[in-house]
């Protein structure tokens, strides 16, 4: 067993884990953060995408011990004080959600993209979610949602268009 310490969605955590435990098992089974989904368990579908030190990873392919001293962001961290992020709202508005099982991973891939590239082209959006499988939507609305969220972020930077939601402290932060 190994003792590891890390931050999940800003909260410090210290846990003892077996060497074989994956980050996905740690998040879902130990920390009960079940928003992160398992679609295949072998890194092929992207449903378990989370941000590890700001970069999107498939949590089923990362060992929990690799997360020692790291910063992890999951879908549960997207919502702040009960308020959806602009990205989450854009998924609803654009009709980018159907069964919803790929949605958390899709949003985390998009978050990773917008973090490193706040104004992505459609090609860059497609590249960023190419590893996230969705069987329901046909992806078009998901691409629309990410484009919409990028526009909302730009609008937020423009004071005249500030919406009611408080600015997220991580928007645009280059910590990845």
């Amino acid at each position, binding site marked *: 067993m190994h003792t590891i310490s890390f931050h999940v969605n800003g909260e410090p955590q210290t846990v003892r884990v077996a060497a074989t435990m994956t980050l996905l098992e740690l998040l879902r089974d130990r920390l009960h953060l079940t928003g992160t989904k398992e679609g295949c368990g072998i890194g092929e579908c992207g449903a378990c995408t989370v941000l590890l030190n700001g970069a999107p990873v498939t949590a089923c392919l990362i060992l929990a011990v690799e997360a020692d001293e790291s910063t992890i962001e999951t879908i549960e961290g997207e919502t702040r004080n009960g308020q959806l992020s602009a990205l989450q709202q854009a998924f609803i508005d654009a009709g980018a959600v159907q069964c919803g099982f790929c949605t958390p991973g899709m949003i985390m891939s998009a978050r990773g993209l917008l973090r490193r590239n706040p104004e992505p082209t459609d090609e860059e*959006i497609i590249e960023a979610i190419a590893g996230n499988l969705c069987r329901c939507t046909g992806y078009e609305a998901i691409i629309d949602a990410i484009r919409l969220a990028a526009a909302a972020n730009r609008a937020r930077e423009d004071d005249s268009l500030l919406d009611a939601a408080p600015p997220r402290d991580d928007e645009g932060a280059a910590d990845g």
Partner: protein
Amino acid sequence: MTKGQPMADLKFVGKGISREDGVDKVSGSARYTHDLVVPGMLHTAVIRSPHASARIVSIETDAAEALPGVRVVLTGEGLCYRLGLYMQDKCILAREVVRYQGEAVVAVAADTLDIARAACQLIEIEYALNEAILDPRDAMQDGAHLVHPDLDSYDHMVGVFFPKAGTNVAHHQKIRKGDFDDAFESADVKLSASFYNPPVQHVPMETHATIAQALPGDRIELWTSSQSPYTVRHLMSVAFGMPHASIRVHVPYVGGGFGGKAGLGLEPLAYVLSRSAGGQPVKVVATREEEFNTLPSRQGLHSTIEIGCSKAGEIEALKSTYVWDAGAYADYGVNIGRAAAYSGGGPYSIDNCWIDSYVVYTNKIFGTAYRGFGHLEILWGIERAIDMMARKLKMDPVEFRRLNLLKEGDTTITGETFTSGHGSPVGCLDAAADALDWETPSAAPSEPGKVRGKGIAMLHKAPAMPTYTSCAAVIKLDEDGGCDILVSGVDYGQGTYTVLRQIAAEELKIPIERAHVTWECDTAFSPYDWQTVASRFAYMGGNAVIEAAADCLRQIREVAAHALDVEPDDIDCEDASAFVRGKPETKIPYGKLALGYTFPNGNSIGGPVIGHGRFIATGLTHLDPETGQGLPAQYWTYGAHAVEVEVDTETGEIEIVKIATALDAGKVLNPKLVAGQVVGGVIQGLGSALWEGFRFDETGRFLNPSFVDYKIPTAKDLPRETERIFLENPQPGGPYGARGVAEHPMISVPSAIGNALFDALGIEFTTLPLSYENILLRILETHAEKE
């Protein structure tokens, strides 16, 4: 007559309301069966057969049972249950023989998944190989190895399905109309062509998952990722001989289904494990590999289409022979074979029609419902053959279709009269063709070495369901004048709950924000629905909600009339209030009526307002066993796809330049949600067209049960442009005139692409998928033939 409020007054129906479940799903708070933990829950691993056909000689489980943490090891021996909806041909675990590679043979429930998996490694199974029969055409031959020697002893829906004892034919559906032989003989132009569709997987992103608990007193509680709470309950009741009320089924959020989660899945296995574990709850979750090769798929199909036409281009005779590769079990497959027959001539007027649809057992993964229910498969053949015939006649494919499509006064191949209430197949054809500028030749390809082509294909489908299919809705009015809507159809992504909410708000005259569908079906509380399949939930559930709302309003009027000292007929309702007609100042808010009305002196009348609505299919008949004549369809939905492709002749790569889809929806209930459903369906159809298909080796081993070897469309595979066109010719009896469109966007996508490929390359494709590899091989073959 359509059902519901007059069109002109609609506030919510027909509007692009966002889905109510969006917040739960984008925030990660939507709980799926995958996410659930019941205290004390055990975890399961399954050993699957490595052989397509073998006798189980022995199973040695002692070492596994001795492993600490192992609670139960079960084999098929002793599990003498037959399962099935239409045909009871399947056991919980293989008994005596295995019939496909991937079939579950042993299940272990243990304290952790790791222990269960380790225990599986300690189990020794000895098999004696049997002959494996892999091609359904071989399986139909006299003397073929029988996959089910006891077929004649299986219970099935009598009078609807006709298994042939002593053969591998689980069902043979016939359609006989007019005199095919004579008409074909005398036709001016004739065509015969054969086609093939491989089996494919649904690929819900949430694999099948179930938690079962055997409770004291012979009761069962289930949490399951299912499309069918009440059908699960019913089939469990039949299988285990328990009263329905002893079985409670919860269906939380479901991560996609597409037909694969209809009927029974892992529920019986989870239950018998829990029962053997002394009532500890047991969770069974399919791995992605098991989702591919243990759980059912879409059946493969071999089809032959013969068409005879007059010189003028009228179809005079059509014969289809469908040989379905049911795989090892045909519970659902038999009904697909039936639906394929009564739809089996395409959406055309055919006076002389002969169809044989055979559902044939083989030693492969078994089939079940998959979006389109046989129609993508049969229309791959029909719509390709229609194009081939148009060429023989030297007619434009659109013109040839327009001439032969069903029109008012025609009869379908089962004898149903086509009316304006069916919608407009011709309208769909023209709309799709126009969207692609059909008359204008393709623009020049983007690069040298590439060619372009256009193709079009029709689609049609009706709900394939028992003649007595029914459902109900309950609406409870809340103290604040809002409402909760209870149904047992499952919204596993289609958006139907949002549509039902729109309907309830519309009919009750309350703000949309105040109407809620209760998420999580529970057979203990939610009223009956057969199951969520066949593109019928918005139609049937919508009608039930309209009726439930009317029941609420009747109760509201009664109490308000008493309170205001008038007759109920004098009460109007608007803005969540009841008032005397013409006297809005008398209004009483619903909130003061929802639980009963209290007079100023304290006297009270009425009581909680709870509305009940129901719907049952009407007028449907069983099909005549010899001729197939009868009324199988509550309604039909017609549509068309027009597609332009660009093909790289050096590599076989194909790109979809544009695909336009026209559907006669009757009435669009929610444009935002239906647009998403159509795009999603088209892209799923693109998967069937270009990439997807199971591969087996010569021993029946399934070669591509993973996302690495079985590609589904990704964000990189999208067409350059998609377009959707909705016709709104109202459906009589439909809610606001709506008919189902859920499965339809997927159907005929491969056909349209196949037709476009001929236009681009001059090559007839008859086998799916139209992968780059297969396209290139055909290009090279054609070049070789020319040289």
